C-alpha cells in the first residue's frame, strides 16, 4: 500500500486534504490494523489526498487522562500539538472515537485547533458526495446487521446517525439492540478499562453486550471503535457464536462492497 506521510508531503511543499490519525490500536493491534488498511484503501480509491504521521504519531493521552494521570496526558498533548501545528494540519480524520474525542474536545484549549472528523462521518460524506458508490447486490445485501454505538462517538459527542446512514448504503437489514443510541451499553473498555482487568462483579460488561448483540439474530455486529472491536469479539466468542456472527468495523464493510 502506497501511503504518504505528512513529512513527505511537507518535503514536496504540498498539503494533503486531510490527515488520517491512525491511533495506537489502529497502528499496533493486529485486528485493528485491518480496519486501518480498509479505511486507507477507501481513501485511496476515492482519490482523497491524505497523509499519515507515521512514526511521528503518538498516543493522544486519552487512557492516561481517564486513569487520572494528567501529567502524562499533558505531555502527550503538548508533543502531538507541536507536531500537528508544525505541519499546519487543518483537518483530521480518525477511526478511533477516543482519539476523535481527545483531538476534537480536549486539544483546542491546549492550543491544538483542528477540524476533527470521525471516519464514520467521513464515510457518510463520501457517500453523499457520490465519491463512494456501492456495488449492486453486495455481500451484506439483505443480511441482518446490528450496530453498536461506542460511548465516545455517541453519548460523548452526540453522533448516532452518521454510522447508521453509512450502514444503510449496504442495503442490509439494520436491527437495533434494546440498549442503543443514547441508551447504548458500553463495551467495557472506556475510561482506561481496556488496559486493566475488570473489577470483580457478576458478569463482564463485554459478555453482557456480546450476548445482547448476538440475541438480535444479526450476522454482523458493526462497530466504529477499535476498543469496542476487541471487547465485542471476545463477547461474541463467549456466546460460542464466533463462527456465525462477525464483528466488523463500518470501514471494513464499506471497503468490501464499494465499486472499483
Amino acid at each position, binding site marked *: *500500500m502506497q501511503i504518504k*506521510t505528512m513529512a513527505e508531503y511537507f518535503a514536496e511543499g504540498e498539503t494533503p486534504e486531510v490527515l488520517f490519525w*491512525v491511533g*495506537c490500536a*489502529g*497502528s*499496533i493491534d493486529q485486528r485493528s*490494523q485491518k480496519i486501518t*488498511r480498509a479505511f486507507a484503501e477507501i481513501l485511496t480509491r476515492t482519490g482523497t489526498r491524505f497523509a*499519515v504521521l*507515521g*512514526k511521528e*504519531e*503518538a*498516543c493522544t*493521552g486519552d*487512557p*492516561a*487522562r*481517564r*486513569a*487520572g*494521570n*494528567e*501529567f*502524562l496526558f*499533558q*505531555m*502527550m498533548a*503538548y508533543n502531538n500539538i507541536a507536531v500537528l501545528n508544525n505541519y499546519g494540519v487543518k483537518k483530521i480524520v480518525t477511526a478511533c472515537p477516543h482519539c476523535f*474525542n481527545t483531538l476534537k*474536545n*480536549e486539544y483546542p*484549549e*491546549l492550543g491544538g485547533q483542528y477540524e476533527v472528523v470521525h471516519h464514520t462521518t467521513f464515510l457518510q460524506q463520501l457517500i453523499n458526495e457520490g465519491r463512494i458508490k456501492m456495488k449492486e447486490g453486495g455481500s451484506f445485501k439483505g443480511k441482518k446487521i446490528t450496530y453498536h454505538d461506542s*460511548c*465516545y462517538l455517541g*453519548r*460523548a*459527542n*452526540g453522533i448516532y446517525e452518521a454510522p447508521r446512514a453509512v450502514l444503510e448504503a449496504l442495503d442490509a437489514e439494520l436491527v437495533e439492540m434494546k440498549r442503543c443510541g*443514547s*441508551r447504548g*451499553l*458500553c463495551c*467495557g473498555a*472506556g475510561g*482506561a478499562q*481496556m*488496559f*486493566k*482487568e*475488570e*473489577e*470483580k*462483579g*457478576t*458478569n*463482564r*460488561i463485554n459478555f453482557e453486550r456480546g450476548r445482547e448483540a448476538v440475541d438480535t439474530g444479526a450476522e454482523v455486529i458493526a462497530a466504529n471503535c477499535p476498543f469496542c472491536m476487541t471487547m465485542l469479539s471476545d463477547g461474541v466468542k463467549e456466546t460460542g457464536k464466533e463462527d456465525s456472527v462477525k464483528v466488523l468495523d463500518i470501514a471494513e464493510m464499506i471497503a468490501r462492497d464499494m465499486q472499483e
Partner: protein
Amino acid sequence: MQIVSQLLFLAALAAAVYFFSRRAAGIRRSIMLGRDTDLSDQPARRWNNLLLLAFGQKKMFRNPLVAVLHFFVYAGFVIINLEILEIMIDGMAGTHRIFAPFLGSLYNVLIGCFEILAVLVAVSCAIFLVRRNILKLKRFISRDLDGWPRSDANYILITEILLMVLFLTMNTADGVLQTRGAAHYPVTGSFWVTGAFQPLLEGLSDSTLAGIERGAWWLHILGILGFLNYLTWSKHLHIILAFPNAYFARLESNGKMENMPAIQQEVLYAMQPELAPTEPTGTEVPKFGAKDVADLTWKNLLDAYACTECGRCSAACPATQTGKALSPRLIMMKTRDRSEALSRGEQDKTLLRDYITEEELRACTSCNACVMECPVSINPLDIILQMRRHLVMEESSAPQEWTLMFSNIENNMAPWKSSPDERDAWIHA
C-alpha cells in the same frame, strides 16, 4: 376565638419559615465547602437549559409514561400552591376564601382545576408507591437505598397523597356547608370534583362539617409547612435544587474532561524551560484531584444535594449492571452524606475510602450513561474522574496494569508494549 386561631397560624408559619431558612443556610454552607468554579458564562444557553430541563423536565420524557405521571405531581404542586397563597392570607387575616368575592365565577374554575390536579397528584403518587413496593422495579429495590433512603421515598409519596386528600376533604365539607348557607362559608358554586362527593357528607350536622372542614384545613396547611421543612433533610430537595442545577449544568460536550491549567503550565515549563518564571511564584503546594468534598467544586456538591436517588444513572451504568461495586447513585449519595458530615464537624474522615472506595472508582468506564440519564443534570462521572486524579497524582495509587500502561505511553508512545518504530508497520504489512 378567631384571634387565637390567627395567632396560632402566625406562630406555625413563623416557626416553619425560621427552621426552613436556617436549614437552607446550612445547605448553602455545605455546598460552598466545594472549591470555586466559574459557571456564569453563556447565560442564554443556561436559561434555555433551565426552561427545558427543569421547567420542561425534558430528560424525564425519555420514559414518557413515567414522565407524564411525574409531570402531574410537579404541575400539581406548582399550581396548587396558588391556593396556598389564599390559605396563608386566610390564616393570618382570619378570613375564609378571601379571593372568592374578587374572582367571582373564575374562582370556581380555579378551584375546579386545583381539584382535578389534586386527584391526578394523588393517583400518580399511588402508582409510584406501587412501582416501588409492589412491582419492585430493580432500581428501587437496589441495595443502594437500604434503610432511610427507601423509607424517605415512601414517606414523601404518602405525605403527598395525604395532603391531597386533606385538600379535597376540606373542599367537600366546605361545599356542603355552602349549600346550607352556613355563616362564614361564602357561596362559590359547586366544586368540580368534590361536588360529586358532597352526598357522602350530607347526613352530618353543620358543626361536625365545620369541624371536618377546619380540621382538614389545619392539617393541610400544617402538613405543608412541615413538609417544607422535611424536604430539606430529604431526597425531595430536588424540587428546589433541580432548578439551579439545570442552570449550572455543564455546557461542554460530555466527552471533554476538565482541563487542569496548573499541570498544563508545569508541562509547558518542563518542555520550554525558558518560559518558566525564575522566581518561585507561590508557596502553596497545589492539590491535584479530589480526596474530599472540599476538593470538589461547589457544582459537584450542588449535584449531590439535588440528587433525588431515582437511580436512572445506576440502571444505565455498565458497571452497576454487571454487579461491580460502583453505583453512580451511591457516588452522589455518599458525596452528600460526607458534605453533611463535614459541615457537622466530622474531621477525621474523607470522601475517599471512608465513603467511596477505590474499587468503586476503578470500575467506571467513563461511558457517560449516568450523565445522559440524569433528569436533574447531575454529573457523577466528573466526581469519579477527579478522585481518580487524586489517586494517581497524589498517592501514585493505580492498578499495576495502569502503571505499565503509563510507562508504555511514556516510552513507546502507545499504551501497549511496542516499538515506536513499528507504528507504521501496518502500511507495509
